């Protein structure tokens, strides 16, 4: 095994098989589970299965078809007819119904109705009543057409060559890149942070001097970057498994999970843009570690890297409204803003191949340049105990 791989393996083992790493690995899915649980709790609090009453003067619901079954986690609400508003009001006052709707005689033409309630009726319950009305308005229509009308429009944008498409109902194709971007950023900075700290520690405890009599600075730095990129990818892989396995298991039981599909374009962006970005960030963190004298100083300097990476999230409104604008394109090409911008745009539009190729080429070139810079910073700063390497020295010094 070459020395580069020995360094990479050591770096990997040193960080992955630690309690700190395992805690970090589990904490993100735990937070996600807690958030999802919280969302379900909020939804559950909105669900009220107390029946809804109605007084129909229009005759629409004289022989009603039942309301379509709501999708999980919502539960069906019974629709109870009342002959008069007085009866309905009595039932409401007695708490037997949560609200009642009054359909006037001209409902079919006016579309206006009235709702009476004591406590405001929650959206899931009112939606069930509107679905009930919709089903009855479409009574007699061909069932397939009725089903499509109830479901609503599903606009699918397709590329000219027909290889890629984007559906408005495929909510996951929009949400996934956003979540993946955050996951990548967390993993980038976790593993990059390990790398920076390791370099600073090796300088502080003089290990570097021993290592450099065995391996060249470039081999050492490249090995560390490879090792720490693998640490980050392990983190991402573990998170993906922790997310994907429950999704696959529960896919048939929970209908909304069936919308989850990862497009080929997303996979291409992840491999061609995110992977070199990962190496770029790791190399820049290593360069910072090689120039500073203590870990705390290095952490302050990581802001220079993290700020551009988060910029696309700050401009999310502009990116969402115009995913193909000049600004969006520019941010897709700038090294540190590219990874998140590309992922966000991937969820919103069809990215032309040339943009992915150009963005990827820029990221790879910058990653290579960053590795060179890290190696240079390392060589210049490795034995400067207690003294920071200046930018001027980094770019001007010859050694």
């Amino acid at each position, binding site marked *: *095994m070459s*020395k580069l791989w*020995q*360094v990479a393996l*050591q770096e990997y083992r*040193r960080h992955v098989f630690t309690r700190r790493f395992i805690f970090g690995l589990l904490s993100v899915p735990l937070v996600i589970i807690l958030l999802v649980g919280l969302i379900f709790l909020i939804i559950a609090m909105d669900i009220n299965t107390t029946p809804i009453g109605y007084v129909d003067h229009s005759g629409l619901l004289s022989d009603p078809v039942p309301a379509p079954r709501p999708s999980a986690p919502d539960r069906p609400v019974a629709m109870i007819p009342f002959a008069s508003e007085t009866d309905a009001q009595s039932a409401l006052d007695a708490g037997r119904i949560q609200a009642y709707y009054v359909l006037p005689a001209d409902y079919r033409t006016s579309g206006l109705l009235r709702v009476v309630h004591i406590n405001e009726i929650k959206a899931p319950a009112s939606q069930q009543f509107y679905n009930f009305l919709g089903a009855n308005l479409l009574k007699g229509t061909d069932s397939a057409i009725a089903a499509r009308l109830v479901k609503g429009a599903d606009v699918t944008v397709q590329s000219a060559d027909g290889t890629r498409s984007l559906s408005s109902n495929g909510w996951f194709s929009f949400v996934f890149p956003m979540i993946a971007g955050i996951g990548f950023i967390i993993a980038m900075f976790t593993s990059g942070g390990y790398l920076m700290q390791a370099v600073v*520690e*090796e300088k502080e*405890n*003089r*290990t*570097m*001097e*021993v*290592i*450099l*009599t*065995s*391996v*060249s600075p470039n*081999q050492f730095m490249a090995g560390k970057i490879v090792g720490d990129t693998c640490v980050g990818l392990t983190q991402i892989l573990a998170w993906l498994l922790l997310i994907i396995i429950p999704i696959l298991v529960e896919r048939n039981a929970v209908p909304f999970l069936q919308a989850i599909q990862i497009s080929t374009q997303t996979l291409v962006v992840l491999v061609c843009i995110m992977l070199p970005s990962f190496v770029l960030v790791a190399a820049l963190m290593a360069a910072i570690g090689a120039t500073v004298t203590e870990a705390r100083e290095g952490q302050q300097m990581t802001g220079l890297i993290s700020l551009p990476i988060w910029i696309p999230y700050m401009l999310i409104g502009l990116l969402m409204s115009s995913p193909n604008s000049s600004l969006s394109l520019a941010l897709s090409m700038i090294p540190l803003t590219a990874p998140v911008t590309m992922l966000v745009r991937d969820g919103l539009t069809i990215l032309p191949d040339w943009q992915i190729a150009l963005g990827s080429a820029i990221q790879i070139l910058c990653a290579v340049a960053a590795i060179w810079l890290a190696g240079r910073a390392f060589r210049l700063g*490795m*034995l400067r105990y207690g003294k920071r390497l200046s930018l001027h020295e980094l770019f001007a010094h010859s*050694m």
Partner: protein
Amino acid sequence: MPIVELTHVTKSFGPVKAVEDVSFSLEKGELFGLLGPNGAGKTTSLRVMLDIFKPDGGSVAVLGGVMTEAKKDRIGYMPEERGLYQDIPLERCLAYLGALKGMRPADVKRRAEAYLERFDLAAYKNKKVKELSKGMQQKAQVIATLLHQPELLIVDEPFSGLDPLNTQMVKDLLVEQHEQGVTIILCSHQMHQVEELCERIVLIDHGKVMLYGGLIEIRRQFSGNAVLVRSPVELPILPGVERVEPVNGTVKLHLAQGTDPQAILQALVARKLPVEQFEIAMPTLDEIFIRVVQSTPRVQGQERAA
């Protein structure tokens, strides 16, 4: 052919000249002392030798030519400030450092176990390095340096932090390596250790070579004109003796210029005085070191790297 040769090496850090026109060489199998006060340029010389720093001028030849990555596997270096990974077990740390020297895992394990036994560290091999005492870490560093059986051993202050027992153990190990033909550069402030172990030395001060050569020749060079005499009786005033100085149960006779020590011995014998010891008074390396370093003018306001 010298195994290490520095020729007119110069290295500066900004305005500070850490090493200036340093030249010395050593042959295969030598135990060579590299001496100098703090900040003299010793460590910079070693780092230049090891290709950690590139020299600004001059040339360095190690193991028969310029330093290469492959040659690094034939060199063992123990820096003055110890450098072991603190947060991993000792055995894993040694395995990694051995692997970086191109050793196979089985060889690392076998040799590490033998050295751990020898240095009474076998019971601590699964402990994290930071959990070991300073002396234990020092011994672990010695093991890491010797693990790959280097041809050239460079040890910077190998006795610091060791108790007398472990100092002797390391000293024995250096002698053993020397007997096996390993070339050793011993960098130390402990002059008596250097005096005991080394055959030749180089003394660097202010980045320049102040003394270089065989230890006996250097001591003779600094001996002056004096003899040490041990006698059970009080010595009379002898012709050619300028001053008498008692030294640890002996007397040091400082001779006038042109007086031959042999003439003093003959005078003692002619007077039938009992003589238990008679030798040319040679200074210790400590004395030579102090004399040389104190005679070098200090440059104010300059702090040397290294």
